[in-house]
């Protein structure tokens, strides 16, 4: 099984390079992460993040044969060889496949990803009707792996100003939450030519999301609400 892996160690390398690896391994139904861990037994200098190894933590997002995805839920059998693995595009590389996610999380924090409710906390939970709760389906499942945002050209060009699909999906998650009381402020925060309207609906985000979520639809719903409040 042949691999081409992006290597870069800022302490020793002048520039990044692609390194070839050959792994004797019957893939079967194994995932890409399994192969990467075996490769690391061969060469313990390969740097990548991983944790839960089942598509829940979002640590092992990387660019696999030109497409962002999670190594732990990408079956080896679906990949054409040599399997070319690069770090997520558009973010600074710390080492090999490890990128600096600071900018991504800065944008995520900018949309206030928490419930804003000024009423005194009730004795029990803040309850919702099943119908209101259903509005959050397809939004709360996001694991913040960064696959969508780093596949978005608008984020590549303006990472400091455009919130990006992951952040905007979460923005809508709180706008759609009936328990949240900051809808107007949240819409104000996004009513900006850069923060929301850099999205030109090319849907790379939907294409790569390992959880099959739809940030484009959420962005459309935010725009709908903005239109609704001005007409």
């Amino acid at each position: 099984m042949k691999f081409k892996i992006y290597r870069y160690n800022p302490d020793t390398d002048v520039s990044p390079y692609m390194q070839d690896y050959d792994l004797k391994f019957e893939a079967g139904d194994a995932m890409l992460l399994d192969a990467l861990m075996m490769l690391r037994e061969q060469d313990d200098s390969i740097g990548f993040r991983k944790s839960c190894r089942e598509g829940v933590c979002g640590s092992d997002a990387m660019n696999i044969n030109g497409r962002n995805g999670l190594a732990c839920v990408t079956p080896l059998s679906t990949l054409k060889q040599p399997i070319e693995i690069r770090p997520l595009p558009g973010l600074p590389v710390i080492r090999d496949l490890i990128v600096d996610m600071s900018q991504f999380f800065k944008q995520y924090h900018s949309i206030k990803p928490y419930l804003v409710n000024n009423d005194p906390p009730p004795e029990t939970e803040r309850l919702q009707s099943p119908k209101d709760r259903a509005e959050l389906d397809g939004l709360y499942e996001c694991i913040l792996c960064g696959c969508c945002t780093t596949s978005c050209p608008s984020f590549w060009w303006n990472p400091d100003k455009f919130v990006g699909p992951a952040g905007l999906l979460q923005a809508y998650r709180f706008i759609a939450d009936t328990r949240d009381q900051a809808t107007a402020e949240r819409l104000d925060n996004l009513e900006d030519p850069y923060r929301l309207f850099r999205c030109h609906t090319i849907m790379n985000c939907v294409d790569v999301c390992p959880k099959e979520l739809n940030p484009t639809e959420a962005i459309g719903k935010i725009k709908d609400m903005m239109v609704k409040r001005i007409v």
Partner: protein
Amino acid sequence: MLNRVVTGAHYGLRDWLAQRITAVVMVLFTVFVAVYLLLQPTVGYDVWTGLFADDVVRSFALLFLLSLFYHAWIGVRDIVMDYVKPASVRLLIHVAVILALLLYVIWSVQILWGV
């Protein structure tokens, strides 16, 4: 100068909506002209000038052109916002594009009501 990233211009929605509305106007006019020309047995100079002899058609054409210019302004500005990083150069290009489009408006009126 203080180097902070600033956002919050509060005009994203207006332009996004305008881009959609102007697109609809352009489609309507394009379909109108296409259908009109297809219905003519022959198309020549007299058919073309005959179409624009009517003030209603002239006004519709002007509406189409105004939509086109506004639509183009938003599109060009989006490209400039993505690719031109220094704000001063961006402002310069924005002003140049706006002035050019204003000239086009005057020119369009001259053409439509001049023939």
